[in-house]
């Protein structure tokens, strides 16, 4: 009988697969898209070392938070830290606190398209905020000329570009504007999407940089990694110490190191406008969201093992993939935090 043969072979095949499937630990995660590239590298390298399998869905921070709340994943990832309400909801539903572990950092670059002035446009926080508020509308505005001596600005309207999709990049950018401009804080606020006073929306980094490249007189913000990969012209920003700094990975790491001294113990902190002469002001962490008390202790152990590896060897992969690695000061704080995850 053909049929019974088929069944027999299926049973045999299952018998061969099952033991190894049981031996293999599989961790499910979901969330932010921004760190997806380095996370997939990490998961790949680490699973070869340890045998732990990962399944990560980069569905966006919002989706990741929802899945963590519903308990459908073993860990989440987000570009924005959870609010008190969100943490309370998870505690109620899943019976566990949530631990935020920063993994890498991203930064936001102000890019522009004004051929007449070439590279290294200087911007102060106030000018930047007023451009995005629609109060400075022309490139030859005296306030821009004042901080860019020796440049000839055209009498051209500034076409402001921003992200149209909700994103961690927007969250970091608007968080910065809230810190440096009272008017922005009152009128607009911060978030993954905001009610923009002016400007055109582009979908994703590529959408915004497309808007900038195509339209002379445009200015917009994009992810640092994206700007570096695509060689976009960028502006130097005046930081909290009053120095104009270029957006670089070093500048970002300095900002994190500067902020480490007074970081809250739960590591929920925005790095924007960090102190330090070399700190680049618009940058931030991306976090993994971990249950403090996982029901499955084997899984908890596997996650702790992975996180420890990510803080050490994992960080060395960051620069090649255009992420800013965590400075030593922050790694130390993270390791202490990882130690509080219950594995017993």
């Amino acid at each position, binding site marked *: 009988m053909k049929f019974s043969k088929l069944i027999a072979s299926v049973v045999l095949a299952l018998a061969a697969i099952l033991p190894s499937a049981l031996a293999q630990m599989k961790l499910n995660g979901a969330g932010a898209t921004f760190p997806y590239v380095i996370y997939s590298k990490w998961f790949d390298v680490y699973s070869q070392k340890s045998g732990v399998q990962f399944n990560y869905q980069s569905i966006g921070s*919002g989706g990741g938070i929802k899945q963590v709340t519903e308990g459908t994943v073993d860990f989440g990832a987000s570009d924005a830290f959870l609010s008190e309400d969100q943490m309370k909801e998870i505690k109620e539903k899943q019976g566990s606190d949530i631990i935020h572990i920063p993994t890498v950092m991203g930064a936001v670059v102000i890019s522009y398209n004004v051929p007449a002035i070439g590279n290294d446009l200087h911007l102060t926080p106030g000018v930047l905020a007023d451009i995005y508020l629609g109060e400075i509308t022309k490139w030859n505005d005296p306030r821009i000329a004042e901080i860019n001596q020796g440049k000839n600005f055209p009498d051209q309207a500034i*076409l402001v570009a921003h992200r149209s*999709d909700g994103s961690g990049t927007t969250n970091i950018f608007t968080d910065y504007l809230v810190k440096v401009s009272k008017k922005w804080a009152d009128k607009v606020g911060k978030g993954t999407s905001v009610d923009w006073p002016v400007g055109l929306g582009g*979908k994703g980094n590529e959408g915004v940089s497309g*808007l900038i490249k195509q339209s002379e007189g445009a200015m917009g913000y994009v992810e640092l990694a994206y700007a570096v990969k695509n060689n976009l012209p960028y502006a130097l920003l005046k930081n909290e110490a009053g120095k104009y700094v270029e957006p670089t990975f070093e500048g970002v790491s300095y900002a994190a190191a500067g902020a480490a001294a007074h970081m809250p113990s739960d590591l929920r902190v925005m790095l924007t406008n960090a102190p330090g002469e070399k700190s680049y002001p618009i940058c931030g962490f991306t976090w993994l969201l971990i249950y403090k008390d996982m029901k499955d202790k084997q899984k908890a152990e596997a996650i702790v093992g992975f996180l420890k590896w990510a803080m050490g060897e994992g960080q060395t992969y960051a620069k090649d993939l255009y992420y800013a690695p965590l400075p030593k000061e922050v790694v130390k704080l993270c390791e202490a935090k990882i130690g509080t995850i219950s594995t017993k």
Partner: protein
Amino acid sequence: MAQSQPNRVYTEPASEPTKTDASTSSGGNDNVVDPPDVVLAPPARAGSRNIGDRIFQNVTFLFALIVLTLVFLMAYEMYRGSQLTIGKFGWSFLVSSTWDPVRDVYGALPYIFGTIATSVLALLIALPLSLGIAVFLSELAPRWLEPSVSFLVELLAAIPSIVYGLWGFFVLVPWLRVSVEPFLIRHLSFLPFFSGAPYGFGVLAAGLIMAIMVLPIITSVSRDVLRSIPNSQREAALALGATRWETSRIMLSDARSGLLGAILLGLGRAVGETMAVTMVIGNTSKISLSLLDTGYSMASVIANEFAEATTNMYTSALIEIALLLFIVTIILNAAARLIVWSVTRKFSAA
């Protein structure tokens, strides 16, 4: 369009199984079926007493029921998902133009307006073109040319919308900004529709892209509607000495309700179009009369913001927009089907 083909020739059989099923189970009264349909239908179908056939019929009926259930479930889930905003904002959700995720205040008017403005613009551009092509294909085209033109038109419908979006982003928008919009501003800026700065991105770009996308739908449905007019009508008109132009006009007026259906089907496509529109419309939530200004659409705002919508109220607002879009699409499609059905039925009965 492949699925409109059966619609044209045998409209009734497609919707018949449910009807006959109901009638057999309530005593098997075959007279419910319309006279022309009896001629078209396979004789064994309606009154089979074979047990296998009856099981087969019921099983397929169940399959059909699944589709219905799905639609209702989807509508219900969206209604449930948008409870928060429906409760908080009520009808003002439809007329308020503030969309502020930071303060959790939501109003959908700019998106509703953008969807309507771009769809209407797309129809205005696509309609004359599509009708022209349809008349050419059904009335005038030489036999050797017709299949290849039909094929090309239907090929347009098969191109994924993201491809249109990319083309719009890299080709159409720069062209609009450099050539078309400055021209419009120079010569027509006294009209409110053509004032403002030439961004390239905006309602005009979105309308143009959508026009290209709805063109094949309107064309192929109207061609089918025109073809369903019996040849005797054409022959009669020609025999009375009417010119080709006059004959075509008679055909168009005969088929007008069917053509309206074609337009509504096109509109349905336009209303739901997402990716291509997102890439060229400029994604600015504001209401402006000018075609050169940027805007936003309902489908775009969902695609853009859903992934990172972190608060419950925010998600609820987006789901409510989805619900609105769902309702609009269903109404448009139902109306279109009804109209196309009524016209083809009229002629096949005659």
